[in-house]
């Protein structure tokens, strides 16, 4: 703990990142009750209103909907999906990567082969086609499909970190004691390899935000009326010359959130890798 505080004092960028991240989490939880508008309400007298007009702090879009409210409500869904995705993809990665690395041999080869094939298609293209084909994404289906698209990456990290301590004495000791494979994998090995996996999971969180925002931008993310940051950018794209704020503020929201998580993730990796 002391070490974390010591490192934190030495890295102003990490403090900035954590502050922005906390700001967004605060807004996602309490924000909707702080604004006088709802995210679907159309102010027909103030369409494409500039920031500040008629209590619209960040202005309105072409339908007269309050941008600040939409961004705040949108932060809930993007944070939820990204959190679920990073947890689920790390979990799937551990299951796949650990079983491949632990048992080795034919299982390992088969799993690696399968991951290679999955990697033959860029994750964004994979998620986009599947979501587009299925249609009507919900928070659950979006998280599930993006996590599946991330499995090749997370499974490799888990497999790699399992291999580094598979031949340690304590693993042999457990095996001689007659512990089950599951016990050895999750009680003996997992706690010792958790560092790189946590680093990967926080980086995955940032990737998830990028991916979910991009999918929303491509129109295969969460469906209206749920406001989605990526979708807000593309739906206001035609009015970029008349109401640039309607495009820039959602874009800025995405940018600040992803950068803050990247800074946070860099800090986590610095702390965890030095501790070992």
């Amino acid at each position, binding site marked *: 703990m002391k070490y974390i505080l010591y490192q934190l004092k030495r890295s102003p960028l990490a403090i900035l990142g954590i502050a922005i991240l906390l700001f967004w989490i605060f807004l996602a939880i309490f924000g909707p009750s702080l604004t006088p508008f709802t995210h679907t309400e159309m102010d027909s007298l103030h369409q494409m209103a500039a920031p500040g007009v008629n209590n619209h702090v960040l202005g309105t879009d072409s339908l007269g909907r309050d941008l600040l409210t939409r961004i705040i409500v949108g932060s809930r869904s993007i944070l939820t999906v990204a959190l679920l995705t990073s947890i689920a993809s790390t979990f799937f990665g551990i299951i796949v990567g650990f079983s491949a690395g632990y048992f080795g041999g034919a299982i390992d080869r088969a799993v690696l082969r399968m991951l290679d094939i999955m990697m033959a298609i*860029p994750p964004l293209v994979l998620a*986009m086609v599947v979501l587009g084909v299925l249609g009507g994404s919900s928070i659950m289906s979006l998280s599930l499909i993006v996590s599946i698209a991330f499995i090749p990456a997370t499974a490799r990290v888990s497999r790699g970190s399992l291999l580094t301590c598979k031949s340690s004495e304590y693993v042999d000791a457990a095996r001689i004691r007659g512990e089950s494979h599951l016990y050895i994998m999750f009680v003996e090995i997992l706690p010792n390899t958790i560092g790189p996996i946590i680093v990967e999971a926080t980086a995955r969180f940032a990737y998830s935000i*990028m991916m979910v925002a*991009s999918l929303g931008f*491509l129109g295969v993310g969460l469906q209206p009326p749920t406001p989605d940051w990526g979708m807000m*950018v593309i739906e206001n794209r035609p009015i970029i010359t008349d109401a*640039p704020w309607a495009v820039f503020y959602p*874009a800025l929201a*995405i940018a600040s959130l992803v950068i803050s998580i990247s800074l946070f993730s860099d800090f986590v990796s610095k702390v965890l890798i030095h501790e070992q």
Partner: protein
Amino acid sequence: MNILKTFMRRLGSLIVTLVVMSVVIFVLVEIMPGDVAEMILGQSATPESLEALREARGLNDPIYQRYARWAGGILQGDLGESIYMRGVAINSILWRRVGHSVLLAFTAFIIFVPLSIFFGVLAGVKAKKLTDSIISFFGLATMALPEFVSGVFLIGLFAVQLRVFPIVSIIPIGESIFSNLNILILPALSITFVMFGYISRMQRSSMILVLNSDYIRAATLKGMPYKYVIFRHALKNALLPTITIIGMNMGWLFGGLIVVETLFAFPGMGSLLMTAIRTRDVPLIEACVLLITAIFAISTLVTDMLYGLLNPRIRYQGDAQ
């Protein structure tokens, strides 16, 4: 000799990958909700005419027969017909779009590769100094931005404020892309932003690693000019990991192309795939995704082979075995 053997083995696994992917793509798209016959004839079609069309197009055949017919067509260079565009051969739309995308990717490539290597080397040489901090933070920030976010800021600056580049990348009807090259710049810069972070970061760390090695210290102690040491000795070795990273990011580049093309309404392969998904155009989705997979797989193979050729350690190791 050995490289040839590795190449053949990799080529074999590439073909297996493509075959498996083609099955996956086909099955995935075929289970899509919605009836192709109804999409062609419209909502008002009679059940008899729908049934006749299904029969004529072989839609009632079992799925493996349809797959065989589709795959057979592809092997003969026939990608089928688009449904949304009323039976136009996919071959006649797709390749023009692919040409545009390749040109866009190439433009981005010749911007981001030298740029990120240069700044990566600079950051590596000036490690832990102000120059390094600025470059590294800029790289981290741009790397974190999805292409459409940096693209939107670029549009805001160069198209809305300064008006030096067009807001959308549309080619006027009857003109070719070569008479409209200015539409390439903003999309290419959006891709550059994302790639810059990854590549310059890699270049920086490999440069630092090389600069700390014994032979560089020896060269410096011998009294060689500093510039000569950096460019002749260090850079040559520090480039290798960068090449791998460039190859590995090809997948991101393709994903990025789709996003960027959608943002700028650029008439490339990515926006064609988006249209195909939006209009549920089954044969067109299949053709686009298969093509992206193939290009991606081939570029990975080329990177790996290039890495083997350039790295003497791997080359000689291979020969010794």
